[in-house]
C-alpha cells in the first residue's frame, strides 16, 4: 500500500510539473493563446474534487449512485433529443447534487458531459462544459445543504436552478467562446460575447427550471425512498 500511494503522489507531482511546464512554454512562445491558459486553469479547477474523491476511497454504493445518475442524465438527453427545448441534463445533475451532496453533483456533471460529448462531438469546449455542469451540481448541493432549496420548495428550487444556469453555468461556457474568439476578432469585449450568449442561456435556464419543476419532486422522493430502504 505504501508503495502504491507513493506512486500516486509521484504521478500527481509529475502532472503538476507538466502543467507548469506547459504554462511556461505557452507564456513564452504561444502567441495570444489565452485559450490554453484558461483551459489549463479549468482543468486545475477540476482536480481538487477529483483528488478528494480518490482520497476518500469511495464505497461501491457511492460509486454506483453517481454512475447511475450520470448515466440517467445522458440516456434521457439522448433518448429525447427530438423533443424541442427539452434539456434535462442540467436539471438531473442538480438533483444529483441535492440528493447525494455537492462533490457527487460535481463529479456527475463532469462525467455526464464527457460521456455525452462522446456521442456528440469532443472539441475545445469540452473541459469548459464539464467544469460548468460540475459547478452547477456543486452549487445546488451546497444550497440544498444550507436548506435554501429542497423537496417542499419546488418553485424556489426551479427558479434558483434557472438563475444558476443563467448566471453561472452559461457564462462559464461563454468564457470558452470568448477565449476562442479572443484571438480571432482582435479587440472583442467580453460583454459582447456574454450578451450574445444570453438568449441561448435563457432558453437553457427555462428548460432546466421546467425540468426541476416537473421531475425534481418525484425523483427526489424516489431517491429518498431508496435511501431509507437500503440505509445509504
Amino acid at each position, binding site marked *: 500500500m505504501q508503495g502504491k500511494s507513493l506512486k500516486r503522489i509521484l504521478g500527481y507531482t509529475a502532472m503538476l510539473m507538466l502543467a507548469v511546464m506547459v504554462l511556461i512554454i505557452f507564456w513564452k512562445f504561444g502567441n495570444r493563446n489565452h485559450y490554453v491558459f484558461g483551459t489549463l486553469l479549468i482543468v486545475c479547477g477540476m482536480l481538487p474534487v477529483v483528488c478528494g474523491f480518490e482520497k476518500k476511497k469511495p464505497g461501491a454504493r457511492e460509486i454506483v449512485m453517481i454512475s447511475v445518475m450520470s448515466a440517467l442524465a445522458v440516456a434521457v438527453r439522448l433518448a429525447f433529443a427530438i423533443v424541442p427545448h427539452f434539456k434535462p441534463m442540467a436539471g438531473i445533475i442538480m438533483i444529483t447534487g441535492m440528493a447525494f451532496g455537492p462533490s457527487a453533483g460535481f463529479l456527475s456533471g463532469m462525467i455526464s458531459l464527457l460521456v455525452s460529448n462522446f456521442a456528440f462531438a469532443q472539441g475545445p469546449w469540452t473541459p469548459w462544459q464539464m467544469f460548468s455542469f460540475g459547478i452547477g451540481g456543486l452549487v445546488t448541493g451546497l444550497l440544498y445543504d444550507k436548506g435554501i432549496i429542497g423537496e417542499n420548495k419546488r418553485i424556489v428550487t426551479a427558479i434558483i436552478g434557472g438563475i444558476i444556469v443563467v448566471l453561472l453555468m452559461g457564462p462559464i461556457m461563454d468564457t470558452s467562446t470568448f477565449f476562442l474568439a479572443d484571438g480571432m476578432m482582435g479587440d472583442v469585449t467580453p460583454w459582447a460575447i456574454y450578451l450574445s450568449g444570453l438568449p441561448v442561456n435563457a432558453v437553457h435556464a427555462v428548460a432546466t427550471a421546467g425540468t426541476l419543476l416537473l421531475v425534481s419532486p418525484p425523483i427526489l422522493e424516489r*431517491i429518498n425512498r431508496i435511501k431509507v430502504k437500503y440505509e445509504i
Partner: protein
Amino acid sequence: MDRETAFEKINPIICFIYIIGAMALCMFTMHPVACCAVLVMSLLLYVNVCGRGVLNRLPLLLVVYSILSLSNPLFNTKGETILFTYFGGREFTLEALCYGMMLSAMFVSVLMLFGVYHRLMTSDKLMYIFGGLAPGVSLVLSMVLRLVPHYGNQIKKINTARYIKQEGKYSKVANVMSAMTTWSLESGILMADSMKCRGYGCGTRGRFSIYSIKGKDIAVLILAVFLFASVLICRVKGGLDAAFIPRIKISRWDNIYFVMAIWNMILYLAIPIVINVTEAVKWHILRLKD
C-alpha cells in the same frame, strides 16, 4: 469505424501526447508558410486517420475559414495598407485580413486535429490513461459508458409499454423519467451489492489493459519529442517570427532556423501518415505474393 489503421494500435499514452503536441504546434506560430504547412498536413492527417468520408465536411470548414478570416478586419482596423473603406470611413486593411487568415488557419487546423483526436482516443483508451491516476473516477466513467446504452434500451421498452397511452409530450417525458429513476436506482443498488460481494474495495486493485509499450511506441515518442523540441528551439531563435500589425514582417527563406522549423513541423505531423502508409504498402505486397 470502418477499418483500423496502424497508428491506432500504438500505445494510447504516446498517442495522447502526440496529439496534444500536434495541437500545441498549430498554436505556436502565425507565420504564413508555417500556417499553410500545418493546415495542409493536418488535413492530410485528418483524411488519413478518419477515412475519405471526412472530405464531406470540407465545405463546412471552408465556410468557417472564410467567415473567420473576413470578419477579422471588421473588428480590427489597425494596419497600413487600406484596401477599401465602408460605412463612411471605416477601413478594411490588408494587414488585418492577413492576420485573420492566419488565425483562422490555426483554428481550422485545431478543429481538424480534434477530429483526429475524436477518432484515435476512444473512451477505452482514455480510461487506460487515467485509470492509474484516478481509479475511482475512471470506474465511474466506465460504468456510465456501459449504463448509457443499457438505459437507452430500457427507455425504449418503457416507451413501448406506454405506446397506447394518450399523453402530452412533456408529461410523457416526465413519466418515463420517473419510471426510469426507480428502476435504475433499484438496479444500481443490486449492482453495488453484487460488487461488494465480489470483493470490491478489499485489497489492492489491478486494472485490465490490452496495451503495452513496444519498441515502435518508444521510437515514435522519441521522434516526436525530438521534432517538437527542435521546432521549439527554432521558434526561440526567431525562425518563425511573424508580425502583421501595423506592417507585415515575416522571417525569410534565407533564415536557416525558419527552414528547419517548417521542415520539422511537417515531419512531426507526418508521423502517423508514414506509419499508416507503410503498413498499407506492406499489406499490399504481402497480398500480391499469394
